[in-house]
């Protein structure tokens, strides 16, 4: 879930297209009339190209539009106001949440037989919860040099061969796909906040704080994409897919 949120913030993540690539038969004889040109080279990293399957694109584009408004008219202004909180404090809030979500990363590392990563997460949790004062600081990374390794149930499914399924954009949560959406639901049970004995609105408040805090630390990634991309929807869809496939491969 947390991941879905950060995706909405469009931390550069997202997927590829479904545009039916017309099967082109044998490539039309390239008439390289311009002899001054260097020979055509194909940088065939292209072969592994990730493409999103997006059968409900019109619907997704609608939700994308909604999320865009939500971001610019509510989330971002709130995050901007929240920036009165000094940055070091906001970084600590971010560290705290990151530490809190250790179970998700730990369990999914183990499920994928990535025992080193699991051990790393455990080490990080112990160190950051004690020396790092309840996770407010991240000495495990800054001092011991062990970085967080993001794992979630979507990746676990992918690791065992599950494809992404179709791409979808959720209101508020942003880009996901069938596999990662289901994975997010499972990860919900690994989220300690779920087990807190608190009211629903309090739970919502905690998530809202996490989201606003993360947005306040983001360097306007979504704004950049909005400004630079010819079609931000496709740019984000492709980024999401590439990012997810990359995480699964790693």
């Amino acid at each position, binding site marked *: 879930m947390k991941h879905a949120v950060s995706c909405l913030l469009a931390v550069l993540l997202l997927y590829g297209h479904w545009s039916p690539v017309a099967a082109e038969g044998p490539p039309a004889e390239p008439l390289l009339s311009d002899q001054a040109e260097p020979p055509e080279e194909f940088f065939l990293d292209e072969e592994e190209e990730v493409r999103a399957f997006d059968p409900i694109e019109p619907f997704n584009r609608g939700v994308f539009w909604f999320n865009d408004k939500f971001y610019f008219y509510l989330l971002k202004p709130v995050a901007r106001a929240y920036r009165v909180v000094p940055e070091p404090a906001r970084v600590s809030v*971010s560290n705290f949440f990151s530490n809190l979500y250790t179970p998700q990363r730990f369990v999914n590392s183990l499920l994928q037989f990535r025992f080193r990563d699991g051990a790393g997460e455990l080490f990080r949790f112990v160190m950051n919860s004690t020396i790092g004062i309840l996770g407010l600081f991240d000495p495990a990374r800054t001092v011991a040099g062990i970085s967080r390794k993001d794992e979630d149930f979507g990746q676990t499914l992918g690791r065992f061969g599950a494809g992404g399924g179709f791409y979808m954009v959720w209101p508020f949560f942003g880009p996901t796909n069938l596999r990662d959406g289901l994975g997010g639901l499972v990860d919900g049970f690994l989220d300690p906040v779920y087990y807190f004995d608190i009211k629903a609105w309090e739970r919502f408040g905690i998530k809202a704080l996490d989201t606003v805090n993360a947005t306040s630390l983001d360097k306007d990634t979504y704004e950049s994409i909005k400004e*630079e991309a010819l079609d931000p929807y496709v740019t984000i869809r492709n980024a999401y897919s590439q990012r997810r496939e990359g995480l699964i491969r790693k």
Partner: protein
Amino acid sequence: MMGKRYGVLLCVPLLVGMLSIAPAGTGPLEQVRVTVDEIITILRNGQLESAVKREKISAVVRQKFDFRAMSQSTLSTNWRKASPDEQARFVALFSELLEETYLRRIDAYTDEDVKYVREDIRDTRAVVDTVIRSKTADIPVSYKLVLRSDGWRVYDVVVEEISLISNFRSSYREIVQKEGISGLLARMEEKIQELRSPVSVEGAK
């Protein structure tokens, strides 16, 4: 005997000559390090006006990035369908767009520490892995390079698993499908104008 000795002596200037032609550290990693450091130094220079900064960085980038290869790779199969004239226009427009995009991105991370992790060379291709150490996380950034007669040139940048080129390719392909190459070129021109104009687009649309 004398001949042998002299032979060795003769070799010395040759060796020295070779060393100076290929100074230690022209490997891809070193080249990326030099380039990125150079750009960051320019960015951090508080005395330069931003237009001057722009120009200086542009000069560095144009020297180290292979925009033609990037263009081919981005257009992919559509490259062949484009006329030489369209190809040339695409390369020119795409270079500008990329520069703009890359600069904005790197601009945001001026204060962060960059770590150069490793290089992986295969024939004339190489991948250099770097990590930007931000305040909250480590962001992996890899550069893909190709060896040209004048050294290694970057042809793709991969940030957090996301290849810039393959990302461009995905949206450009859709636009070419719907509007043709001329439509794509027109939209790129428009976008460059937009990015150059000082008015921020934020909140617009």
